[in-house]
């Protein structure tokens, strides 16, 4: 059997990824995580001295903390198998990528292991996050200077 015939056979026989189901599960779990985040934000605004603008940071920190606990207890990967992008895209996915790498490499010591590998997966989120923030800020600055929009 040549390569082309085999590729066709492989396409035909390989089970398909359940796309519709995955989308629905990602939507539900991703939405649930965001709803929890919103609740935490209101909690900080209602019980503490945070405003809508300043409540963001403690909310993100709390969500990452919860994600770290779930990762450490081995639950996050199970949620992720069910939810897919639903648990990867919110900030909890970032926390999971970071803490899972840190746990993984602790046997290589704190400096070369944990420190050197903690951002192995999450590093590109930071790099491209910072870079896209820079590009967006640049565009906005130019538009403001040109008088198209205001701050």
């Amino acid at each position, binding site marked *: *059997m040549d*390569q082309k015939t*085999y*590729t066709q*056979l*492989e396409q035909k*026989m*390989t*089970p*398909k*990824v*359940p796309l519709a189901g*995955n989308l629905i599960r990602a939507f539900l779990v991703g939405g649930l995580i965001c709803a929890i985040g919103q609740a935490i934000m209101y909690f900080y605004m209602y019980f503490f001295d945070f405003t809508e603008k300043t409540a963001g940071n403690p909310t993100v920190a709390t969500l990452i903390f919860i994600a770290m606990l779930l*990762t*450490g207890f*081995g639950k*996050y*990967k199970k*949620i*992720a*198998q069910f*939810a*897919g*992008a639903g*648990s*990867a895209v919110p900030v909890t*996915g970032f926390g*999971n*990528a970071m*803490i*899972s*790498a840190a*746990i*993984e*490499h602790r*046997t290589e010591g704190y400096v070369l292991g944990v420190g050197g590998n903690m951002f*192995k*997966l999450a590093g590109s989120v930071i790099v491209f996050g910072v870079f896209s923030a820079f590009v967006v800020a640049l565009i906005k600055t130019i538009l403001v200077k040109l008088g198209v929009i205001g701050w």
Partner: protein
Amino acid sequence: MVARGILNFPSRPSIRAAAVAAGPLEKKKSIFGPLFDKLHDSELCGEDTNEKAHSRLIEDACGLALEKAGAMPADADFLLCGDLVNEMTPSNFAAANLHLPYIGLFSACATSVSSLAVAALLTESGASRLALAGSASHHNSIERQFRYPIEYGFQKGPTAQWTVTAAGFAAVTQNEPGYPEIRRATIGRSVDYGLTDPLNMGAAMAPAAFDTLSRHLFGTNSVPGDYDAIITGDLGSVGSSLFRQMAKEEGLEVRRSKWRDAGEEFYGDDPSFFAGASGAGCSAAVYFSDVFQKMLAGEYRRVLLIATGALLSPLSFQQGESIPCTAHAVELSMSGGGQS
């Protein structure tokens, strides 16, 4: 005529004993669990790191195989062994503790059979009276190397396979009546059909398995009907249906019960393992427990073991390369079974 890549062993080296050591998940979930000789209750097997645990499994299986053969480590002439960790350090450390002349072999998950073939060659040449051959894998140490950290959450698709934590070893001796004999081996070619998905290894490996099967059948002038079982290594459910389909389209007789796959059977039908098991320890664990015992019991007289291996690295995958695969085969028979 010498058929390319086919080794004949007229002196019929025997597999005198075989042993398997495995981890806690295999104890709980594998249908072969009750057949394994040593089952650890923790993934770390009492060691500090996954890699040390990996070595521990190899040492355990080697020690048990020797013990069953009525020998001590000092009685063995060679250790032929491999795993999937970079530079095969678990095998190297185990070899250091066993103090045996040692060749590390890398055929990815096909090492269970390539080591057996080399052991048979050494025995055939008269250089070895007792050689240990086998391979191992450890879920945590292999996953971290080839894929992501263990606790990293990502969704695996239906074609993914689960790396087993197990080591399987055989003690190969000169011919001893009453034990499975190694009759022939076929050394696999590296076959690349251009597949690139490291989470669908079964489909990448199936053409290699078929290549080796057809070369073995042609070179030994046999047909599938001559074997009581044809057992592939870790194609999983996706790869083995592709493998069987290829065989069918080439006009080979395919009777479902005779065509087995260690990876597909390893964890039963449990969907949480997706397409089944994989890893260098997967085929070794099944060949050196279930298959070996079935041969001793007389249920199988002649079998063909085709272990498959995906020869990729995380680097080659990230550079967008395809996945070359191989498959090595050995033919075992009980005395009087098969043709000479």
